[in-house]
Each structure stands twice: as structure tokens, then as C-alpha cells.
């Protein structure tokens, strides 16, 4: 049975909706371009890899169409799986289509995405409007997304599928500060509504309950609130230096109705080694507090409405670093494509948990060492412009 897949799946629902929040730089349609990506995540006993393809084509310089295919192949023996379930593997496929149109200085975007796996389906629709003003130095964007998820559970004939509605409201402002600098301010509010107390959680995961008196450890299904409201704001900046290199940074703060407060900071540097070669390095720090209903080990005396043992709801931090190397060449005049680029991107993550214990250890419950793990992501990207 799978106990980590639903955080991936739940995150997917939010992810599908969140991507439309991306700030625009000016009122231009996306370039005619095709991207082919291979992605691979490994860490904590989990491997997720697969291909992704995104194709864009303009029509009459006023419209742009896009189509996307994305695939995840998951093989999981995570700590959750090792402690309360058995290893699993599965595949998720995602399809997306998009339409953009440029009218004067305003860009309108509509996107639709659908994703399926054997126990989780997600659909989402997005509407975004972006407008340039103040001599094209300022871009204001507004967006709304609606998502519909269906939460299933394998190997359980008594399970009744749960429904989750997700709504995203977002706004952002990009401002040219000088001939070398630009900043972006963004805000996004997200509302999740589940059909019952197990809709927003993971149907496979259990909490641990320990009875001090009898020294008995038992397990129970997680119970989550039916709603989750969250707010996030961010500020991003990019600065072009004398040698055409670029320094960039991003800060984000997050809070939600489950009691989680988080922030992350990323800084990076992009350096054009030659006209063809481009190098980038980046470091990132993330930390969060735990949800109010999270505990690594509940007591038999606890009388709570909600309880969870999802390590993503615990107190932890994540430090990561990464680099990118890309090689770009123009195509000969008579070719259909105008240029091509090959990129390799590598990121390494270090997760350290403050109140999530490694329950695989043989010890009295509540005395195990804290859990930590490292992970890495590699992305290979081939892009062509036409």
C-alpha cells in the first residue's frame, strides 16, 4: 500500500493550480518552442522519474497554443512505507492544454490540466490576466484557478472516494527598477475544501498512539480538518551585472489555518561563460513549524478531533544547492528550427526533522532518533525554437 503517494498527489493538485501564478515580464506571447525533459528524483527511499514534453505555437502573432504531457513513475520504499505498509510502484500521467492571446498590452491565458493515477485524479482550470503599463516598466497580473480532485484508495473495498475542491486567488506586480534590475511582488491565497476529514490527508497513513501504562503501541487513521486556507507572499529580484552575469534572489513567507508558518530564501548567480555556454549556481534554505494537530506520537489519553503524522506537517528545515549548465546553438539558416539548447540541472537537498522520529529504529516509542534524509534531483532538458 502507498502511504507517501498522497502527499505527492495532494501536492500535485496544489501544484497544478499554483503554476498559473507565475509572474509575467511584459506583454508578449510565449515563444514558439518545444521542450523535452527527463526528470529524476531520488531520496528517502523514493524514486520518481519520467519524461515531460511542452510544445508552443503562435498563430498570427496574437494567439498562442500549448500542449503538455508529463509522466511520473514512482517507486517508493519511504520511511512511511517501511514502517506501516509495503513497497509500491505506480505511474501518473498528466495532460495540459493552454491558450494565450495578446490584445494591445494585455495578455489573457486559459489553461486546463488533467492528471490520472490508479488512486488519485485531478483536474484544474486556470484564468490569468496580465497588463503592462507605466511605459511597460510595470506588469500587473491577476489569476484564479479551480481544481477538482478525487481521492481513492487501493486494496480497500470499503473506501468511498473523497472529493477535494481547490481555489487559488493570486496577484502579482513586476516592476523595472533600473536598466539593470527588476523585482516582482506576488501574493496567493489558496482554499482547499475536502468532502470529509480524510479527504485532505493520506488514506494510507496512520498515526502512532502509545499507552504508557500498558506499554502498547497502536495505530489509527489520520483525521484532518475539512478545510485548509493558506496565504503566501513572495518578493523576487534579478540584477544584471557588468559582465552580463545575473544575480537573483527570492524570499517567500507562508502561513495557513493549520498553524504552519514557513519561509524560504534562495539566492543564485548565472554566468555566461561563452556565447554558447551558460552556468548557474543556487542555494536555498527552507524552514517551517508544525501543524497544530501534528504529533509524532499521540498519547492514549489524547482526546483530539484531528491528528496526523505526516512528516511534511512537522517542524523541519531543508537546505539545498544546485547548478545548471546549458549549451545553446543557432541553427543553420535553412533549418526549420532557429536554435536549440541542451541543459543539465542538478539539485541536492538535506531535510532535517525536529519532531519526526525514525520509527524504524528498535526503541521505546518516543525515544527514537530524529529522522533526516538527503535527496537529489536531476533534470535533462532539450529545447528547440522554431
Amino acid at each position: 500500500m502507498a502511504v507517501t503517494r498522497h502527499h505527492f498527489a495532494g501536492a500535485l493538485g496544489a501544484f497544478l493550480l499554483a503554476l498559473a501564478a507565475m509572474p509575467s515580464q511584459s506583454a508578449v506571447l510565449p515563444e514558439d518552442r518545444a521542450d523535452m525533459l527527463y526528470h529524476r528524483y531520488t531520496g528517502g527511499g523514493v524514486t520518481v522519474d519520467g519524461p515531460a514534453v511542452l510544445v508552443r505555437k503562435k498563430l498570427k502573432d496574437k494567439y498562442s497554443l500549448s500542449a503538455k504531457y508529463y509522466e511520473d513513475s514512482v517507486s517508493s520504499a519511504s520511511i512511511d512505507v517501511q514502517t506501516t505498509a509495503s513497497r509500491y510502484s505506480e505511474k501518473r500521467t498528466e495532460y495540459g492544454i493552454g491558450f494565450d492571446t495578446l490584445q494591445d498590452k494585455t495578455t489573457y491565458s486559459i489553461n486546463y490540466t488533467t492528471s490520472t493515477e490508479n488512486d488519485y485524479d485531478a483536474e484544474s482550470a486556470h484564468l490569468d490576466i496580465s497588463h503592462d503599463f507605466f511605459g511597460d516598466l510595470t506588469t500587473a497580473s491577476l489569476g484564479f484557478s479551480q481544481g477538482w480532485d478525487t481521492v481513492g484508495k487501493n486494496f480497500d473495498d470499503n473506501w468511498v472516494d473523497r472529493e477535494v475542491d481547490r481555489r487559488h486567488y493570486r496577484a502579482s506586480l513586476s516592476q523595472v527598477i533600473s536598466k539593470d534590475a527588476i523585482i516582482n511582488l506576488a501574493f496567493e491565497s489558496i482554499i482547499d475544501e475536502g468532502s470529509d476529514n480524510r479527504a485532505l490527508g493520506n488514506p494510507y497513513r496512520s498515526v502512532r498512539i502509545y499507552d504508557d501504562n500498558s506499554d502498547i503501541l497502536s495505530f489509527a487513521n489520520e483525521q484532518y480538518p475539512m478545510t485548509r486556507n493558506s496565504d503566501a507572499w513572495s518578493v523576487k529580484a534579478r540584477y544584471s551585472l557588468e559582465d552580463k552575469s545575473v544575480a537573483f534572489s527570492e524570499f517567500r513567507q507562508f502561513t495557513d489555518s493549520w498553524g504552519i508558518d514557513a519561509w524560504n530564501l534562495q539566492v543564485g548567480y548565472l554566468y555566461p561563460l561563452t556565447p554558447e555556454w551558460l552556468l548557474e549556481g543556487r542555494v536555498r534554505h527552507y524552514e517551517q513549524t508544525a501543524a497544530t494537530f501534528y504529533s509524532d506520537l499521540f498519547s492514549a489519553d489524547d482526546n483530539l478531533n484531528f491528528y496526523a503524522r505526516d512528516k511534511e506537517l512537522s517542524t523541519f528545515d531543508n537546505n539545498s544547492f544546485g547548478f545548471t549548465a546549458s549549451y545553446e546553438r543557432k541553427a543553420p539558416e535553412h533549418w526549420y528550427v532557429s536554435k536549440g539548447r541542451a541543459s543539465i540541472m542538478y539539485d541536492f537537498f538535506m531535510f532535517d526533522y525536529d519532531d519526526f522520529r525514525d520509527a524504524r529504529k528498535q526503541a521505546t516509542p518516543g525515544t527514537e532518533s530524529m529522522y533526516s534524509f538527503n535527496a537529489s534531483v536531476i533534470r535533462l532538458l532539450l529545447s528547440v525554437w522554431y
Partner: protein
Amino acid sequence: MNNSNRQPTLWRLACLLGMAFAISACAGVTPWVKPYERQNLASPTMAWSRDGLSDGYMHHVYQARESSRGSEGGSGGGCGCN
């Protein structure tokens, strides 16, 4: 009028004056970066995201492992990487 009523009124008045000042200040401001000065800004390296597809994948990785969500930012509006 007692003190408890006066304070919010003064606060609102101060906000209105502040907004009026800000608007009047903006009215005299003109775009300070001319079109011929924007070659650095127009460089692909200054885009919020050079590769929407692969950056979108990283947002997915973060959302699967961290509780934060929203205001990720990245590529241009309607990047088609949903």
C-alpha cells in the same frame, strides 16, 4: 466624541492623507528607463524563468516535500506548464 472613537478616525484620516500624497507623487513620475536602455532587461537571462517546464517540475518537488504552496513565481504568465 470619546478617545476610543477618535483614534480610528484620526487613523483613517492619516491613511487618506498618505494615499493622497502617494498618488500626487506618482502623478509626476514618468518611466525612468527608456526603451533604448533596456537591452540588459530584455536578455533571456533576466527572465523570471528560462525554462518553464523544468522550473515547474521543481515547484512540484518542493510542494511534495514541504507544506508551503503558492506565490512560487517562475516563468511568464500563462507559461503552459501546468
